[in-house]
């Protein structure tokens, strides 16, 4: 596959920056629309990136979101510097959340984050090191998988 056909973008996410939280997901959505990706896929990507972005904003100091788009697939990798996750299996359970009371009152971190990312992705990968940070990677296929 030629490199000409792949678009890369890198976005920085700042931890605790609730004011701008969600802006990366909006930018990615705009790119996908201009490229002509169909709207149900756009929605899945928007939801997954938003949740991934929010995880960085809520728990980490900072993070980087790498986005790549080829005619075959959309790939998103988020790497953060933060507390990491002790028990990934537990964190993947719907409803599990370590969000503080204040965050939950603001409507954040109802514990849907990770499972929701997984639900909207075709491939999902997560790894984490306590005290260092977490890596989440997803792939959404563009070619109809039959």
């Amino acid at each position: 596959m030629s490199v000409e056909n792949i678009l890369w973008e890198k976005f920085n996410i700042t931890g605790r920056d609730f004011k701008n939280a969600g802006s990366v997901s909006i930018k990615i959505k705009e790119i996908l629309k201009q490229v002509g990706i169909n709207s149900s896929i756009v929605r899945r990507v928007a939801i997954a990136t938003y949740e991934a972005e929010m995880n960085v904003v809520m728990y980490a100091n900072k993070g980087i979101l790498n986005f790549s788009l080829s005619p075959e697939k959309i790939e998103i990798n988020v790497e953060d510097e933060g507390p990491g996750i002790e028990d990934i299996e537990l964190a993947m359970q719907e409803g599990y959340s370590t969000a503080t009371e204040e965050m939950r009152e603001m409507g954040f971190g109802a514990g849907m984050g990770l499972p929701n990312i997984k639900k909207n992705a075709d491939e999902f990968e997560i790894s984490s090191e306590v005290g260092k940070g977490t890596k989440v990677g997803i792939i959404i296929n563009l070619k109809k998988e039959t």
Partner: protein
Amino acid sequence: MEQYYHSIYFDEEKCNGRMRCMRVCPTQAIRIRNGKAKMIEERCIDCGECTTTCPQNAILPLTDSFSELSKFKYNIAIPSPALYAQFGREILPDKVLEGVRKIGFDEAYDVALACGSVSFAIQEYIRDYKGQKPLISNSCPVIVRLIQVKYPELIDLIIPIEPPREIAAREMKKGKSKKLGLKEEEIGAIYLTPCPAKMISIKQPAEGGKSHLDGAISIADVYAPLLSAMEGLNKREYKQSLENICIVGIAWSIAGGICRTLRLKNSLGVSGLSHVIKIFDDVVSGKLKNIDFVEAYACIEGCVGGSLTVENIYISYNKILKLIETLELRKNKACPDIREIRRLYKEDYFFIREKINPRPLKPLAENISDAIKKMKEKDEIYQSLPKIDCGVCGSPTCLAFAEDVVKGEAKISDCILISSEKFLKIKQVSRKGEN
């Protein structure tokens, strides 16, 4: 390309290319070409921001004039409830309707009643609905266009219930044609409108099909004649007049009015396009999972803030609010019978038959692979630009300019800073040559 109807037009003679409109347009639908503002048809959602901002009055609303009435044998005026908010507190809807009759209509219909019925129908719909949330109101045509153009992924969230003005027109025509022995085509249903945007829902309904309304006359245009027509009218008891006002219906003219009078729990009233856009972004990213219903209006504070109204937005907003408060305290309120509404609801009385089609902006290229290449090109061009969004190139931002260049709609040399740099370079080269 499909032809799009728009409710505004640009008067080239008057336009002096000042760029104000280009800067306020929320969908970047305006470019300045050869010193004149030009609209990109597929992008415009008829919000009217440009018309109100133009210092030259060069962008004009396209509403109907009174001569429209001569096309029909019998004319019914259907005023937006925002009309009731245009006059002093003592002037209540019944007097306004009487005034409307005097200025040339055979009849004036109080749409608040239809608004009330539709409110209840919306309540039924929200209650039965099991799909993705939140649902979005469709009474503001600008919001519907915004979703068609910029949020096609939200199209299924639009409530498929006819807006009250359409139901009112449909039912009035049906009833009157029987009663008067006229054909329905011989009866004109004319909306008295707070905004040009209603014209698009009449001339080119979002769901295709045909509107039941035949035209729309601006509230600003009926204001003066109406004021003098009401002067001679007999004063009626304030209290007595209150009896005919449907509290649930009157609320349709202000943002959040439906949510408030229905006492919907998990709902939001949102107004002003920039706020609506923020909310829709949140809906797309799944942030508003716990909200059932969003009542959205393009104009600040709802239709009382429409660009063709006369009274100050806050005064008229307050008048409606006061009216609601007064009515809330009273026991007897004119309201549609909920059992009757439920029956009609089951009989499909309220539903829009056709599906709304999305109208997404054209991507950079037909196939994804080419579009990605163009996207990269756009990015490269953008990186080379000064990124100060000066607008002199005729595009609203440097990013929009980069896109226009990639699409072949502008030349890179249109950027004055790039061309002056080039110019300086050429000069330097030629100086060196001189030495």
